[in-house]
């Protein structure tokens, strides 16, 4: 007789298999990959902008940057979540209605409809979480500066380095998708980050 732990494991295993199958059948993984990269890039570059902007503005309180950073992350996350869900859902409902018209059948309870709904939720989660997850690591040096009381200048340097590392990782991921040189792609995005930081620094002189 199955014990509760075994039943729970089987339930979880079945849930993961069904979800994985649904995501594959709906074709959402390719779309989610695009959302992930685009929005992670948005999040990372936005955070770089906040850090460099705070530096040239002469901000000395790390909590100010942490607050601004978290605010921006949350706003990007909510925007991504709601925007992606609404967009994906609209597209998939339209596609489902076209299939229903072609088949002269109500597919509301079918697996086609369920995988459509799953795809919309998955896209929303990826779109919402990716800018948040790519931007948050850049705030860690400021948190450490606030807790361990080391000079904020070190936090600025650490934070920019982390942002550039995240950009490199994203570029390498793009290189892997395109089956091209990972390091070259990584360096391209790092270059974009450096140019962005430079342009922001030049704003100081305007």
């Amino acid at each position, binding site marked *: 007789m199955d014990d509760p732990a075994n039943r729970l494991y089987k339930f979880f295993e079945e849930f993961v298999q069904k979800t994985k*199958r649904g995501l594959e*059948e*709906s*074709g959402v993984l390719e779309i989610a990959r695009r959302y992930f990269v685009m929005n992670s890039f948005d999040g990372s570059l936005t955070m770089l902008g906040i850090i460099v902007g705070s530096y040239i503005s002469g901000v000395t309180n790390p909590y100010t940057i942490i607050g601004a950073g978290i605010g921006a992350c949350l706003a990007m996350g909510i925007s991504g979540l709601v925007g992606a869900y609404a967009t994906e859902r609209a597209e998939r409902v339209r596609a489902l209605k*076209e*299939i229903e*018209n*072609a*088949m002269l*059948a109500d*597919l509301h*309870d*079918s*697996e*086609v*409809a369920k*995988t459509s709904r799953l795809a919309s939720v998955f896209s929303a989660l990826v779109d919402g979480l990716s800018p948040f997850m790519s931007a948050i690591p850049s705030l860690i040096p400021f948190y450490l500066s606030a807790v361990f009381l080391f000079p904020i200048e070190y936090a600025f340097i650490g934070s920019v380095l982390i942002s550039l590392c995240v950009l490199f990782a994203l570029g390498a991921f793009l290189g892997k998708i395109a089956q091209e040189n990972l390091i070259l792609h990584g360096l391209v995005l790092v270059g974009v980050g450096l140019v962005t930081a430079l342009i922001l620094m030049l704003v100081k002189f305007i």
Partner: protein
Amino acid sequence: MSPAIKKIVLDVLKPHQPPIYQFAMRIEELPNVNRVSISTQERDEQTETVKVVVEGSQIDYDEVEKKIVELGGSVHSVDEVTVEKGTQE
């Protein structure tokens, strides 16, 4: 000995997703189904008409139809059926 459905051939209209290999695998998961063959007869922008051959030791037609509907398909006709005397109970 009760009769058992050993083979049914169905004319099914389905959306493109799930693809026929996944459609077949999902029907094959039903109890007492040993083999499922699917061939595409016609295809248009939104749907495809396929011939589904289900073979097994004791096929439950209602379950097969329910699974096909669950997968977004609809059974247009039952084109062929093979029934044999089942094993002695």
